[in-house]
């Protein structure tokens, strides 16, 4: 197996070098969170790619403190803020330490001071004008120009990770899935992978294929939704409506195949119960092909729509180096020229020979993020065409080793790399941490919209089209 998880105990004195130096050694930190250690005292855990596998580095919080790595790994900035709010761990050197999950009334406690001639604040949310999830943005502006954005999320924090603790994995799965409706499959598969890894099991071919079908179906309806949302963001009703209908068609196909429009309940821990007969698979394959043709024609029309091009080209640029620095994932990263895609190395799913596709000009603007969705849609439909060439049969898992206490699952969701780390104890979930692609990318939304004008924010925001629920959990 190529995805073994190695556990590494790191003393506080070496924590900064271990995590901060990963980049120099060809590694990449993926998520950081706090948990109660075996002795009950808090510890900080960091999941990382080391260059030859996955590592879960663990550092005890002596006197409740751990050295901060947020200055050397800005991608973990939010992770540290969350760990302090939820587990009381102090990150030495993280200054100013602004709350992330907690919502203090005092503005000075959580916003960045921005001063100067004519600087003013525009507060938006948590309730927005459309049918949108809840979140609060504080724009620091001069005139219409955005100088800085403070994002306050976690309005829909339901404490799902905490609620899942103490449950058996199959009972915890629906709780974890509840984190997000639109990423239900990706989050569920990441959780199932993590549990299976922790128990030394590996999915068989049928399970891997079934899960890949579900993950790709989820990507198809999400990407169609996102392209439509970007059209709506500039007020281009025909584009918005055509892609809204494409999404609806995709969800009807999904309902026919799985019995649920968001595939709730289609993923299980320890196997797959999904069964699609050869006729149903052929029907879906034909319907997806027709959908693909209509979307391709609509996409070509959008490419030649001058008023749309005028708004999306050059808007909300996220430069390549900033995408790398902030640890951006998914279509947003690929639109900035970061050619990473977890599907290239996904032993627990079914992606033989997969290569990430990038937009033709990955310059990091709204146009590139829109095109990233379009090229990935075609790719996902091609994958599904292959996967649905025959029946999808139920599968199971095989025992490959004795497992360990910890497991990690990684899935490329529609929004990018999603990571789930699970710790099991006596057959129940002791700690589960879900770091979704939306969590990774929210800081980049604020970065990309900096310098834009206020009326462009909804467009820039929609070009990332992140979930709030996925972050808030």
């Amino acid at each position, binding site marked *: 197996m190529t995805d073994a998880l190695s556990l590494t105990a790191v003393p506080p004195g070496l924590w900064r070098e271990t995590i901060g130096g990963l980049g120099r050694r060809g590694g990449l930190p993926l998520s950081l969170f706090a948990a109660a250690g075996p002795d009950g005292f808090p510890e900080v855990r960091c999941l990382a790619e080391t260059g030859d596998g996955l590592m879960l580095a663990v550092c005890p919080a002596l006197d409740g403190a751990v050295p901060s790595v947020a200055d050397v790994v800005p991608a973990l900035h939010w992770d540290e803020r969350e760990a302090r709010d939820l587990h009381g761990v102090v990150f030495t050197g993280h200054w100013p330490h602004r709350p992330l999950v907690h919502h203090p009334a005092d503005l000075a406690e959580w916003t960045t001071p921005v001063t100067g001639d004519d600087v003013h604040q525009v507060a938006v949310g948590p309730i927005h004008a459309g049918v949108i999830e809840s979140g609060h943005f504080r724009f620091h502006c001069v005139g219409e120009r955005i100088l800085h954005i403070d994002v306050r999320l976690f309005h*829909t924090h339901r*404490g799902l990770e905490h*609620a899942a603790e103490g449950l058996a994995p199959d009972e915890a799965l629906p709780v974890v899935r509840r984190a997000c409706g639109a990423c*239900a499959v990706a989050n569920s598969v990441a959780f199932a992978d993590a549990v299976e890894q922790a128990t030394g099991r590996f999915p068989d071919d049928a399970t891997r294929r079934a899960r890949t079908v579900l993950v790709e179906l989820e990507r198809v309806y999400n990407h169609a939704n996102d392209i439509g949302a970007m059209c709506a963001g500039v007020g281009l009703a*025909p584009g918005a409506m055509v892609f809204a209908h494409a999404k609806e068609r995709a969800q009807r196909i999904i309902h026919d195949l799985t019995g649920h429009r968001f595939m*709730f309940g289609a993923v299980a821990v320890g196997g797959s119960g999904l069964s699609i007969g050869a006729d149903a698979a052929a029907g879906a394959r034909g319907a997806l092909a027709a959908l693909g043709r209509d979307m391709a024609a609509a996409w070509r029309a959008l490419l030649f729509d001058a008023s749309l091009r005028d708004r999306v080209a050059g808007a909300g640029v996220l430069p390549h180096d900033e995408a790398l620095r902030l640890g951006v994932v998914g279509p947003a990263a690929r639109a900035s020229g970061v050619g990473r895609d977890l599907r290239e190395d996904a032993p627990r799913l079914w992606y033989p020979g997969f290569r990430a596709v990038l937009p033709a000009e990955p310059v990091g603007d709204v146009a590139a993020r829109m095109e990233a969705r379009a090229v990935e849609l075609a790719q996902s439909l091609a994958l599904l065409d292959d996967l649905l060439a025959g029946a999808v049969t139920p599968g199971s898992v095989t025992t490959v080793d004795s497992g360990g206490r910890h497991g990690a699952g990684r899935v490329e969701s529609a929004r990018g790399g999603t990571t789930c780390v699970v710790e099991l104890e006596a057959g129940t979930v002791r700690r589960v941490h879900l770091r979704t692609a939306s969590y990774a990318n929210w800081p980049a939304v604020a970065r990309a919209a900096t310098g834009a004008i206020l009326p462009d924010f909804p467009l820039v925001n929609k070009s990332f089209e992140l979930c709030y629920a996925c972050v808030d959990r």
Partner: protein
Amino acid sequence: MFVLLRQLQRIRSECALPRPARRGSLQLRHVDAGSCNGCEHELQAASGPAYDLARFGLSITASPRHADVLLVTGAVTTRMRGALEIAYAAMPEPRRVAALGDCALGCGLLGDPSQIAGRVEEILPVDLRIPGCPPDPETIARHLRELLAR
């Protein structure tokens, strides 16, 4: 643009949505009080081309001040309770509250009790209950039309 409009024309004829007989209209304001985003997707789909809530006179309005109905999704989190109450207070009379989805109705998997203020019913007077996880656009449209008849 021509291609898009032609596709739209085809969508319109394929959906073959019947014209509603009943007259009247309601302005809806949606508040996500702690949803997983599933209900939001379905509410958006309900106002999209395949279901087109607007043909019943049901449309989403930007401000609670212009709303007849407050559509609440999700179990109400402690962090959203205040905003929800402010939105309700901003609505003119007569006003209605619709609880959309199983979480809002308190029958879903909600999360850690310390983070949840309660189901919508415990915070606001609920006039309409739309069950489902999430309720599909058809169900949403059907229940909202009931409200139109009241």
